[in-house]
């Protein structure tokens, strides 16, 4: 494999930057169960990186390691060229890693607008006292962040529901709101946990388009987990394949598609 540390050019001619995040020999155990076994891979700046694999392969665990919800027993996560110490999820978020969840984790009682505004929390720095009286810096910040949020809302075409409480929205729209909230944070790395799970074809197409647009328009680095092979192959620049907690493939969609180990993992191997 050619050296890609300084970046590479994709099949469709996009220039991809250097390494943004690197997993080094990550092992994660829950008691006696090894969810992730000695996995290493990297995520380059500006690329769409997919993690795929059959059920129970450890994909979600991997995403949780990246976002700080799980701490691996062995191995390290390198971020922007330096090893990242063990961190709480909110600290990881403050370093510019935003995520969505497989089962949608939104603030159901709050409106779409308020939900998306929470994504801006890390960009607001006014002191508690200034906020308490909503005065000066706190006020300017609120207005400035509000503008940014409106841009994200426009971008994802959810203007018409901005004042609707999230609890009332259908599933597909909730997924989009969750994406909006993650985007509002202007993340350097965006993690999507099964962004298309449970969607119909039309919703899947919409979501794919948004993911591509986000990457294209903001240059956001995206790492995603997805079941739907077709979607993954169309969307991503490079794919990591996991099975039973191990990495069994890593490369461009075409490389992976033709890899015998990957085919076996997905389709099964006939027993002799």
């Amino acid at each position, binding site marked *: 494999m050619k050296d890609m540390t300084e970046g590479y050019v994709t099949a469709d001619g996009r220039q991809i930057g250097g390494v943004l995040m690197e997993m080094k020999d990550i092992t994660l155990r829950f008691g006696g169960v090894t969810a992730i076994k000695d996995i290493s891979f990297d995520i380059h700046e500006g690329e769409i990186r997919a993690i795929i694999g059959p059920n129970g392969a450890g994909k979600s665990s991997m995403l949780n390691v990246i976002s700080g919800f799980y701490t691996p027993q062995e191995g390290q996560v390198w971020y922007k060229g330096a090893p990242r110490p063990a961190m709480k999820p*909110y600290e990881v*978020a403050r370093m510019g890693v935003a995520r969505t969840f497989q089962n949608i984790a939104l603030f159901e009682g*709050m409106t779409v607008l*308020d939900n998306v505004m929470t994504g801006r*929390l890390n960009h607001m720095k006014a002191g508690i006292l200034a906020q308490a009286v909503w005065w000066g810096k706190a006020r300017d910040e609120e207005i400035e962040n509000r503008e940014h949020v409106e841009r994200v809302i426009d971008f994802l075409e959810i203007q018409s529901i901005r004042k609707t409480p999230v609890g009332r929205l259908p599933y597909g729209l909730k997924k989009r709101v969750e994406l909006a909230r993650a985007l509002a*944070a202007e993340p350097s790395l965006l993690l999507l946990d099964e962004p298309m799970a449970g969607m119909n074809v039309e919703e899947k197409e919409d979501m794919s388009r948004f993911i591509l647009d986000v990457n294209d328009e903001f240059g956001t680095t995206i790492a995603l987990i997805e079941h739907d092979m077709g979607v993954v192959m169309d969307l991503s620049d490079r794919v990591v394949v996991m099975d039973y907690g191990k990495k069994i493939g890593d490369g461009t969609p075409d490389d992976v598609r033709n890899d015998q180990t990957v085919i076996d993992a997905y389709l099964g191997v006939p027993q002799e």
Partner: protein
Amino acid sequence: MKDIFITPFVDMFAAPDFLLQVLWEGLVSGILYALIALGFVLIFRSSRIFNFAQGIMVVFAALTLVGFHAMGVPAWISVALTLGVMLALAVSIERIVLRPLVGQPDIILFMATIGITLFLIGFGEIIFGGENKVMITEELGIPTDSWVLEPWGGLLILEQKDVTAVIAAAMLVVGLLAFLNYTRMGRAIRALGDDSQAALSVGISLQTIWVLVWFIAGIIALVTGIAWGARAGVSFALEVIAYKALPVLMLGGLESITGAIIGGLMIGMLEKLFEIYWGQPLLGGNTETWFAFVLALIVLLFRPQGLFGEKIIERV
């Protein structure tokens, strides 16, 4: 039947000034119920913890304030010091009680707040002693005179300290609503109550927010303590008014600040009206102890989420 459905209303119209007086008294106690309920709602919304300790926090704040003043500290510095104590209390509760219990079932956290209540009762009695104290009303610059009005040629007495309490409570509520709705921290507080996982993923620190809401609950407790103490003195008996917050919460819903306020005022005024016009003539009085609970039960029969609670929407 006549005594129930006709006579009370005739009495009300016969002496409208007295009716106003009754409503005013009800409003003032209603404000205090509402303030306590507000402390509950705030903590519940941000952590799904039903904070049983809100009542004792009122007593503790009031005792601390009076205690500092008794040591010769000027009144307003005592207030500042008391706020410091409430902050220290919030930090210790988060560190010692809540942090080790993160992720436990709600009922465990509820039990923990009962533990906090018992601890504060014991701890408070050791430090401040069990006897009644007088609130330092005048020292704080709260007027103690009365305004005598004469609506319809009758008589209406408004105690200025009650008026002050009403104004202070209103300012507190408006400030709190603005804080929750228009600021980063406020949004974080609401977010955390809705989904703690999602909150973590957008960079909200559980610990910071918990300390913050317990501190705000402490501030509310201090205001309540001053207002109630000015009327009835400061003693551990004050803690029982916290139980009045329960029907208020049932009426108003556990999630709604507006609900807590309106529920508090409604209960305060309705229980006074019932006591004066129905309870005393028909039932021998003392209905105020139970009326609120009966009212709340009736509301629950028809609206299980309370009058203002968020409607439970479940997709199946």
